[in-house]
């Protein structure tokens, strides 16, 4: 894809992120952080492509390591956020 287009997406997403998060209350800072951590595990997509490609064992092994780390991030991040948010629920 056109590099300039990708850079445009990147910059617009950064600004969008800033707009979305500027007024978040302190109560949610920690859950927000662990949830955004889970989201940064999106790199799992790249990891899956590498681990499942036929580009050689070395690529598969590096992809495999990336899959493990990214999955810890995704699963751990979402579950722990869920655990915290459950405590904030009104009774």
């Amino acid at each position, binding site marked *: 894809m056109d590099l300039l287009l990708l850079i445009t997406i990147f910059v617009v997403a*950064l600004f969008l992120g800033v707009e979305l998060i500027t007024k978040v209350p302190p*109560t949610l*800072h920690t859950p927000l952080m662990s949830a955004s951590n889970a989201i940064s595990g999106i*790199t799992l997509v790249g990891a*899956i492509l590498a681990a499942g490609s036929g580009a050689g064992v070395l690529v598969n092994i590096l992809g495999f390591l990336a899959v493990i780390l990214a999955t810890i991030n995704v699963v751990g991040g979402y*579950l*722990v956020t869920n655990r915290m948010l459950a405590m904030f629920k009104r009774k």
Partner: protein
Amino acid sequence: MSPTFVSIAYLVAAVLFILGIKNLTKPRTAVKGNQLSSIAMLIAVVVTLLDQQILGYSWIIVGMLIGGFIGAYLARTVQMTSMPEMVAALNGFGGGASLFVALANVFDPSMADNSVAQLSIGITVLIGSVTLSGSFVAFGKLKELLSGNPIKVPGNTILNGALVVAGLLLILANTMSPGGGWIFLLVVVAIALGLVLVLPIGGADMPVVIALLNSYSGIAAATAGFISGNTVLIISGSLVGASGLILTQIMCKAMNRSLPNVLFGVMAEGGEKIDADEVYAGKVKSSSPEEVAMMLETAERVVIVPGYGLAMAQAQHAVRELANVMEARGTDVKYAIHPVAGRMPGHMNVLLAEAEVPYEQLIEMDEINPQFEQTDVAIVIGANDVTNPMAREDKGSPIYGMPILNVDKARNVIIVKRSLSPGFAGLPNPLFAKDNALMLFGDGKKAIVELTASLKEAD
């Protein structure tokens, strides 16, 4: 599955991530936000698994099983007091994952066939490695495997600068002549950079570091997206990057520190050394749980000020119990929350939520400060620097200008603390010597339990 379909599915995932983050910013919708974002992740993963480029599934499935098991185990067993360590470790894993994705692409000629891809690989390796090593130093500090205080690295600023320059040159070299082994040298340089960046940061600056590393882990995912032009990686990675930056900024503001000062471990120049004995000289009054309980019996408005000491003593449940007893007697109880109380942004709120403190009772600094004058008793538990009046009054003090909780304006102040030892900033606290202040020496949890017992007896 056709590439168009994959792209559309990634678009749907990106939109759900955005909606998820939007919902995560309000207490009422946060649970839904987390669900939306996890659905987005599921869509992105499933679609990727069905992608034509996948030839074999064995590595993927085994990797996901191992990672999923470890992640679930960590999330289930981690204590709420250890949340900062957990987040630091997750940041590190995220950065490490992006690093390995970039390295895998180094060996896949079909992926990195142009200079943009090579440049992206270089940048991802740099940020991913810094995040990986930096996060594990932060983890070690929080877990007290390393000293929690700033660890001086000789010639720190020059060393940092040299490593950054070396890293950038190596990225350039790799882009010009890929496959020249530059990338492995870059991994070494960047790992070292992560170490020397975080080692000198300590104590009260930890919330900033964690927020910053959170941001890096997102940026690493975004730059990994540039390697193969993957839009969902770019969008969700940069959302995380931006969110981490905002939290970093909030933390810096809450401590009246600039980001460069935090990064280079610079504290404001203190004037002459402040002598703790001089500050306290015979003016500190010690008290007993019985005496404090008598004071609470007649109090109408009480504000509890929790700090990291409360977390260390696991006293959040004991505090909640005390608040219950006071409320049953008709006392109005609130909690004053300083933005950097604890070791990561919002950590204190999580601990109090664990003890089922209703979040309506958690009052932020700007709102609670004017109320201290009408407060009969302020109970400070394990909070030190965030209540130090020097920040307001002493121009020569290193923490001058940092916004604090004005507990000294309350009619009576009870400070629950083991000793007169200083907090992270290493300063004596003149609050302890004030006329309206009483020290209740002891372990936070034990002292609060005794206090609650005494108050119950009074009925």
